[in-house]
């Protein structure tokens, strides 16, 4: 890049900083690669309650509710995937927490070398999104009802087909070739039966057997199960950041194991060329235990993202499309919440929140 272009870019940067520093509704700040604050706009001063002089060059983890691990995780994701967007909580100078829509992007020098990160936080205190969540819940309930009715209607004729085959099998004088064909029909009927069973599993209001459990123990218990499905030559690095002394939750250990096996297996399968799988647990809003599972895999296109929790929807070639819908149901039955963020070729993040016991 020539010198005059560099100077022009620098002037634009300075102008932009002046403009951004006037915006009070958004907190705009920047950090260097070490996570120290290098820019703190007027909106940041307004939202966080810190003055620029107090906080400049200090560790930005001061602003994060999860402390250092929250900031490290977010910057790690931005470094790997280019961008991070989420609804999280940040910390004011008086220690109180407030919800924000946070966007973090890479800050690069004119030679495209990563020099730091830009963070933009929009205060969303008092802004809820009940309409969307209710729509999703109603949609899932309607699908669940439809699927349950369908499964019932399929099971009746399937029962008759299987029963008749069973009776035919014992008929005398059946030739070997007819017997062979009956075997094939029986096997195919069995295949339908298995599929319907999975569909019923999705629709079923399975009563969780609630115990007081530790989410970290659930996660630790599924890792060996998931790792044995990992391809021997796959080059996936796993990082675990399990929060210490997390409050316990009321949960069904087996059902939650099923959720994390599904999510972790999906993550491995999305990284056939290798990548990074991260698992984080933390406490948020003094109400929830949060589990974040992120991968740097194939990701999911934006137009498919809203459908991933629907039954029979799969972005995988050989997927039945029931795994995530079962996960969704289990988490909802635990009075929790599951959300997904994804970008093609960059990766996918699942955020699960489960209430404290």
């Amino acid at each position: 890049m020539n010198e005059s272009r560099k100077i022009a870019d620098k002037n634009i940067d300075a102008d932009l900083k002046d403009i951004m520093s006037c915006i009070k509704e958004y907190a705009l700040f920047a950090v260097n690669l070490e996570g120290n604050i290098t820019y703190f706009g007027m909106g940041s001063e307004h939202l966080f309650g810190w003055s620029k002089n107090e906080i400049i060059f200090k560790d930005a983890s001061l602003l994060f509710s999860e402390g250092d691990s929250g900031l490290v995780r977010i910057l790690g994701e931005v470094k790997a995937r280019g961008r991070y967007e989420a609804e999280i909580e940040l910390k004011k100078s008086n220690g109180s927490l407030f919800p924000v829509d946070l966007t973090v992007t890479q800050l690069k020098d004119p030679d495209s070398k990563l020099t730091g990160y830009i963070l933009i936080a929009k205060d969303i205190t008092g802004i809820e999104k009940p309409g969307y969540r209710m729509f999703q819940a109603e949609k899932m309930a309607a699908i669940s009802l439809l699927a349950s009715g369908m499964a019932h209607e399929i099971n009746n004729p399937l029962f008759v087909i299987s029963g008749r085959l069973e009776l035919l099998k014992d008929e005398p004088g059946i030739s070997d070739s007819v017997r062979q064909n009956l075997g094939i029909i029986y096997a195919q009927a069995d295949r339908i039966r298995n599929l319907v069973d999975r569909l019923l599993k999705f629709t079923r209001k399975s009563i969780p057997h609630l115990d007081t459990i530790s989410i970290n123990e659930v996660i630790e218990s599924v890792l060996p199960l998931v790792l044995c499905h990992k391809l021997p030559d796959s080059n996936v690095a796993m990082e675990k950041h399990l929060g210490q002394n997390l409050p316990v939750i009321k949960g069904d250990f087996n059902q939650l194991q099923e959720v994390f096996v599904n999510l972790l297996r999906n993550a491995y399968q999305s990284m056939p060329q290798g990548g990074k799988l991260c698992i984080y647990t933390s406490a948020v809003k003094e109400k929830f235990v949060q589990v974040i599972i992120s991968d740097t895999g194939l990701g999911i296109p934006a137009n498919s993202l809203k459908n991933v929790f629907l039954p029979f929807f799969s972005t995988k070639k050989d997927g039945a499309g029931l795994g995530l819908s079962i996960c969704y149901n289990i988490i909802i039955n635990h009075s929790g919440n599951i959300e997904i963020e994804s970008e093609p070729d960059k990766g996918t993040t699942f955020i699960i929140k489960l209430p404290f016991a």
Partner: protein
Amino acid sequence: MANKVLVVDDEASVRELFTELLKKEDCAVTTLSNAEEALDLLEKECFDAVLMDIKLPGISGMEALKKIKEKRPQLPVIMITGFGYDEGLIAKCKEYSCNGYIGKNMPISQIISSFKMFLKIAKDKK
């Protein structure tokens, strides 16, 4: 002696299949397509067991189970359903004192062996 079994299911093909399968198990089978007729028949005739579908037109299998058990707590009633293993339904059936619960999605051999087992347990209790 053959067990007298009353099968209640609204689908003719299911009734016919149960008739053949249970005959092979030395049962004398009577079939009906709805719960109203079943409740009437139970007033007039004695059976060793009732195999009742849960989803029936009119009076549901669940309501029929409740009514049967109120009058004849000793009569074994085994519920059968296309909804498969559903903990909510099972809990409701238990609440109304059913003697067994069978999903139509189970393999046929398992359906028959479960029916025989539930019937034996119910009879042993008497």
